[in-house]
């Protein structure tokens, strides 16, 4: 039960932090980190996949409602949630029956770093491509994806390394 409660708090905190603080960061006009994806990254490994998808959809939709971009965040978040377990299996070898919550401690530093980078890149690319809806501003698009992903990844590492246990 504590895991459930912990995740509910994490959800609320990340959504509020995203819409009230991060969406107002407009550094250089390119950088807008989307830290809320950390919620999907930190769900326990054994969570039923249908529940994972539904949670991703709700999370994306909540962000959408607050930022006037109906559907975009929902699409990107569900997309990345669908590939989550595949990516985890790619980088780690978790034994049957184990149910770790992804972090530096359970995955090991190198596996967790790879996992976060791949997940964030998938999410941000989907999101920014959807937002632009064309490749006419390709280089701007690419810069946006790269810079924002970098900041999100650094934020996630920062938060995860502060966490004890």
């Amino acid at each position: 039960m504590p895991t459930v409660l912990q995740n509910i708090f994490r959800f609320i905190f990340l959504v509020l932090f995203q819409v009230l603080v991060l969406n107002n960061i407009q550094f250089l006009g390119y950088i807008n980190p989307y830290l809320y994806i950390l919620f999907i990254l930190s769900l326990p490994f054994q969570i039923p996949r249908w529940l994972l998808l539904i949670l991703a959809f709700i999370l994306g939709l909540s962000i959408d409602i607050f930022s006037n971009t109906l559907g975009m965040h929902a699409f990107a978040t569900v997309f990345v949630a669908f590939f989550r377990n595949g990516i985890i299996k790619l980088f780690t070898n978790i034994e049957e029956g184990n149910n770790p919550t992804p972090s530096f401690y359970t995955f090991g530093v190198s596996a967790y770093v790879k996992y976060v980078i791949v997940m964030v890149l998938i999410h941000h690319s989907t999101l920014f491509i959807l937002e632009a809806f064309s490749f006419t501003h390709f280089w701007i698009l690419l810069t946006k994806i790269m810079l924002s992903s970098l900041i999100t990844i650094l934020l996630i590492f920062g938060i995860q390394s502060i966490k004890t246990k």
Partner: protein
Amino acid sequence: MKNLINFLIQYSVVFLFLFLEIISFTFIVKNQEYQKSVFLSSSNFLVSGMYEWNNSVVEFFKLRAANDNLSEENTALKNQIINLKNKLSTLTPEANDSIHFRIPPEMIYRFISAKVINSSTNKLLNYITLNKGAIDGIKVDMGVISDEGVVGIVKTVSNQFSVVIPVLNPKSNISCKFKRNNYSGGLIWSGEDYRYANLTDIARHVELALGDTIVTSGFTNSFPEGIPVGTIEDFKIKESDAYYKIKLKLAVNFHTLSHVKVINYLNFQEQKELEKKSVE
């Protein structure tokens, strides 16, 4: 039959995935209509309420800049009063001979002041939410300006809130012209920097210089003529081009925008109906 059920169970997650993605995508594509209906957009009561609360905190930190702005405007107004008084005093003796002076046109513009409670400058499609709506007399297609210049056009209105499409949105289309020689063109945002926009449709024979002032043309009913849009920052033209590539520095700083005025053009309806009739 059993195989079919097994198949469905085995791939149920994939179906769920596709189902959710299709819903999301439908949302994106229908976004236009959704914004019209105000439902689930930031005119939504709960969301706006929260943004208003957030804004009341943030506004505190912007007080200094707002004060500076106000005092500047105040001095400008005072100067204007003195100027007008001077003019008036020179005119009054001849006022009896009123045939020399044009009767001032009717005041056909009214202003509704409003506050920005949510805005963005870093997206490709930016929107601004105002804290006034239909109750305060705001209607769709009204122009929005700040003390510095043009902000945008009202897109959707709910009872207490309204959403504006600012210049920083490729969907906005505001017609503007050179203050100096009245050549008019369209204003388009390039999507990169909130401080700059592009001016299109200026033919190569037009003479222009860096720093020329661009104002609204008054051809769109949303704005009266002569409201500042920006100044020319840079312009280019190739041998083969028929039109200039002009970069404008916008007069309004969208990043610090907090108080705006919505323009209510009292003859809007009449003009629009007349124009519609003549097209038919």
